[in-house]
């Protein structure tokens, strides 16, 4: 006869308790980018909405940026590091397959009681992590979860590549997710489409580079039109489904915070969703560039600190990117 196993007991609901972000100091203008690629300030603005972006310093790591953002989020939540039950780090630019970035982040935060793992869902990583954090809190696996989206994309792109060299940048954003008396994170709508692995991929594997050399270290490459078509046709549908499953209508939203992929994708999604004028839309890409897994929390932090979006307001989040993978949910803002 099998033994009786106790099941964990979690909180009724979970919420984002606080947010913090880290934007590297160095500002890189379109003029500087155009010293490397054959383009113009006007072309970059028209195609992407980007005016400037931030690059991390050469000695500044993914973990450094993650710790900086997470420390701010913990301080804002009033949660001590030893209360943290799990550290989730969404990133695709930590330069070691193992050990994980999250183990080092947890150690440097002093989160000695926390489990730790990384999430590799690229630009969708933060929204994946938010769904997982909510499930941990509600499932009783952790009372407080630190979730970080962080990227140092400048290490993994060809800065001379005309299709990616102006888009990607560096930064980190973090939230603390904890128990709540009321629902504050809606059902996640997520998916992936491996038939489009080649839409955003690497030029070669590190093993191929080691064994065969070749002219270039592996870098990120993107089929811009293919990604644009997928994002515009599928992401508005996923966003609407996240609204429907949360029981929220577009006119009840205070903010729409999509992954900061490209301003043109954001504009096309707004049209497809018929978002009312009063909904504040994240346009952080203009001065931050595309920071993949970090873009949603960095944009959220900016909207809250500038007053563009209200604390306690209702926001629709969606992350989408390499995989091609996506995740969307409605949340109450911290």
């Amino acid at each position, binding site marked *: 006869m099998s033994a009786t196993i106790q099941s964990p007991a979690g909180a009724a609901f979970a919420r984002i308790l606080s947010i913090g972000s880290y934007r590297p100091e160095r500002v890189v203008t379109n003029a500087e980018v155009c010293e490397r690629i054959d383009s113009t300030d006007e072309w970059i603005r028209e*195609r992407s909405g980007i005016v400037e972006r931030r690059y991390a310093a050469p000695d500044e790591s993914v973990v450094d940026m993650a710790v900086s953002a997470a420390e701010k989020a913990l301080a804002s939540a009033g949660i001590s590091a030893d209360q943290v039950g799990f550290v989730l780090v969404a990133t695709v630019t930590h330069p070691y397959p193992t050990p994980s970035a999250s183990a080092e982040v947890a150690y440097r935060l002093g989160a000695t009681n926390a489990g730790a793992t990384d999430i590799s869902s690229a630009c969708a990583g933060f929204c994946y992590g938010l769904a997982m954090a909510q499930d941990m809190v509600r499932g009783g696996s952790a009372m407080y979860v630190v979730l970080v989206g962080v990227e140092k994309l400048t290490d993994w792109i060809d800065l001379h590549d005309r299709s990616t060299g102006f888009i990607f940048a560096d930064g980190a954003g973090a939230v603390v997710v904890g128990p709540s008396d009321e629902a504050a994170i809606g059902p996640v709508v997520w998916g992936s489409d491996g038939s489009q692995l080649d839409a955003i991929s690497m030029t070669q594997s590190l093993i191929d580079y080691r064994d065969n050399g070749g002219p270039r270290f592996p870098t990120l490459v993107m089929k811009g039109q293919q990604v644009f*078509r997928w994002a*515009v046709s599928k992401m508005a549908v996923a966003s609407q489904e996240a609204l429907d499953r949360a029981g929220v209508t577009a006119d009840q939203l205070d903010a729409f915070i999509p992954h900061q992929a490209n301003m*043109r994708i954001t504009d096309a999604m707004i049209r497809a969703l018929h978002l009312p004028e009063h909904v504040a839309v994240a346009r952080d890409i203009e001065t931050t560039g595309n920071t993949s897994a970090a873009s949603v929390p960095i944009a959220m932090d900016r909207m809250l600190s500038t007053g563009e979006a209200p604390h306690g307001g209702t926001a629709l989040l969606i992350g989408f990117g390499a995989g091609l993978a996506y995740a969307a949910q409605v949340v109450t803002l911290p």
Partner: protein
Amino acid sequence: MSQEILDGLAVIVNEVAGVPVADIQSDKSFIDDLDIDSLSMVEVVMAAEDKWGVKIPDSEVKNLRTVGDAVAYIEKSTA
């Protein structure tokens, strides 16, 4: 060439890129004459696919240089 498809396409291009409908004629180049960039072209193609129930793959889009090329492609696909 189908005037109906040309008229429908003109409405789409106008909605996507704000180009006056009267300027959208079959001999006009999307890029050189109408200033439609690659991303707007993707939006035009997607709207056309919805409207006429056709498939215009990315590999085909680059061959649609003029408005007339697009009308002909849609006409052939719906025939």
